[in-house]
């Protein structure tokens, strides 16, 4: 008589095959997921640095001041010239949007999750006769998979 059923050997073989398939699939998801996260964070950091550098070029020379490490958190940070308000959809204060949980919950959560901060390292050199140059290192820091990440870029702003 043919006995239908699953033998222990069959179950073990099936589980072994499942594990062999599952491990690379899991690692594939893991690797690709981490890459996506890294890429997203890197792009976001580069975007933040670009926004800061553009503001530095436009703002008064004397207003460019040091923001020491560990820097300012972008979420719920006090009003600053770079990110708060981050956007204004109108000509009045009514359209102002800040990076807060109420105004921009998704962005706020993202910044909280990754602890994005920025810092400015400013070196001021005066050559006399009003000839001054500021070398500014823009430092964007965040946390990613348990590591402290940093993105650095530099701009030179002349007083002239």
């Amino acid at each position, binding site marked *: *008589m*043919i*006995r*239908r*059923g*699953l*033998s*222990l*050997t069959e*179950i073990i073989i*099936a589980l072994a095959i*499942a594990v062999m398939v*599952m491990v690379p699939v*899991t690692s594939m*998801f*893991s690797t690709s*997921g981490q890459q996506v996260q890294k890429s997203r*964070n*890197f792009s976001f*950091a580069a975007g933040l640095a670009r926004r800061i550098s553009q503001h530095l070029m436009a703002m008064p020379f004397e207003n460019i001041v040091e923001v020491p*490490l*560990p*820097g300012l958190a972008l979420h719920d940070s006090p009003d600053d010239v770079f990110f708060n308000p981050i956007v204004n959809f109108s000509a009045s204060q009514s359209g102002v949007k800040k990076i807060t949980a109420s105004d921009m919950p998704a962005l706020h959560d993202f910044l*909280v*999750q*990754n*602890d994005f901060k920025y810092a400015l*390292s400013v*070196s001021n*050199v005066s*050559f006399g006769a009003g000839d001054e*140059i500021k*070398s500014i*290192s823009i*430092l964007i*820091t965040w*946390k990613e998979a*348990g*590591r*402290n*990440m*940093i*993105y*650095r870029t*530099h701009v*030179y702003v002349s007083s002239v």
Partner: protein
Amino acid sequence: MKAQFDEFTRRATALLNEPGILEKRPAWQIVKAGAISLAPVAENAVTQLEPEIALIFLLASTFTGSKRDSLLKSLFGAAMNRLPSDNFIRLMSKFSQAELKDNLLPFVYESGPRGSIACFVAARLKVTLATEAFQYFLSARAWSPTDLMNLSLLVKPEEASALCSHLEKFVPANDSKVLRDNINEFRYAVQNHLAHEPMLPELADGETSPPPSAPARAGETMRPPQPAPVTAKPLAPISQSTPSVSAPIQTNRAEAAGKPNLSQKIPETLPTEVPAEKSEGPGRPNQSQPQSQAQAKPKSESLDVALHIPESIRRLLLPVGLTMLFLTLGIIYSTWYFSDPEVMTSTTPATAGRAPSQWVDAVSQRPVTARYLAADKDFRMGELFLTRDKFAEALKLFEDALAAEPAHLQALVRSGYCRMQLGDNKKAAEIFRRALSADAGLSSVNLYLGRIHLAANDNAAAEKHFRAEFKLSADLTSGMELANFLNRAGKQNEAMELIAELQEKHPGKMLVLAPTGSENKTERGGDQP
């Protein structure tokens, strides 16, 4: 007559050996013609031909009605004396359910091997019975556990519960304990779907194999594995006080699971008959099966996991189980992956407001320390002084940077450059060599060293560094520097070839070698690293 039978046997055997559907085999028409020719002696044919050939004869013949039924009954009756071959059972399946019910099922009433075999064959042929029929079958004779299992396969699945209810009402009306036990066992088997496949009936030795005179058939090799037959011992006739059932040949799944069972384990030595009164168990009869030690067949050592769940669900267990496993692991992994432990650490007062001692540079993936960042600030400031050719001030800042972080290679190279511009070539060369030993791939360093060696009239060393720089950078500045050096060193041809090569790469520029006697003046802005 014998010649006719022989001829028909030959053709029918040829038919059996052909592949394909029986009625579509090439020999089928010939066999049909032969069957028609044997019609006048049909009774003789059924009795004298081999069972399979006789069955083909009946399939191919044009008999209808009572004559066909009587022939079939006669053939089945003869065939049920021994366990028919697979081929025979397959041929039987060509008959309609009605024909099988009318001509095969009557043998199920018979006690002894014919009844067991008929029950087994009916189960193999998936014959089903009306609910009311079972009480008559169960009342007709003694039932071995195997026969009961086979009989339970004749129940239509959708009528199983109705049958159980029906039999439940039927039990108290019977005085016979044996019958009540039979019915209870049968109900249990039906209710719990214990039988999945027909089980070989319990037969004596000579009844398990087809007649030795049967011709070799391909189907016989496909016979399901048969257990070792019990010693020849005819089944005892049923009696009210001492019912006897033969020992089961094979272990069913209920035994493997240790559940209340139709056939309990076989003791090593048992009397040939056991009184029915020894059966016990609440609601479930415990039949001890008489069997001698020689008859006892050891249970096969099987790793089968016997799961008493419906077949359809059991077949789904593996894929469903694996799917659930995957989903569970996926959920666990996703929960872990998308959880944000950093959120907790970032908001904890212990770490808030305190800068980490080290970061990972998102571009280079190298570690960046707070000390390095402090040194970098001095370095940037020194760069500002370089924009105004204030080498002394710049050198101080670069050295400050190196004091804070000796591994700041850019500050090291810049300090060497400042020293070179300030005329301290010896110290500058030392700094450049240090930088090259730290990173041989630093650009511009070989260029500066070449210039220092050229100024010291060490053409060989200068050429080595110029070539190294051009190999590293392969840009216009290092190429022109090398070409001018070669020209001044008397290697005009090589210098011209290099200029031609550079010109080809930079068609938008007009490249000329410097006059041989002139100094190699270098603009500061163009050769900085």
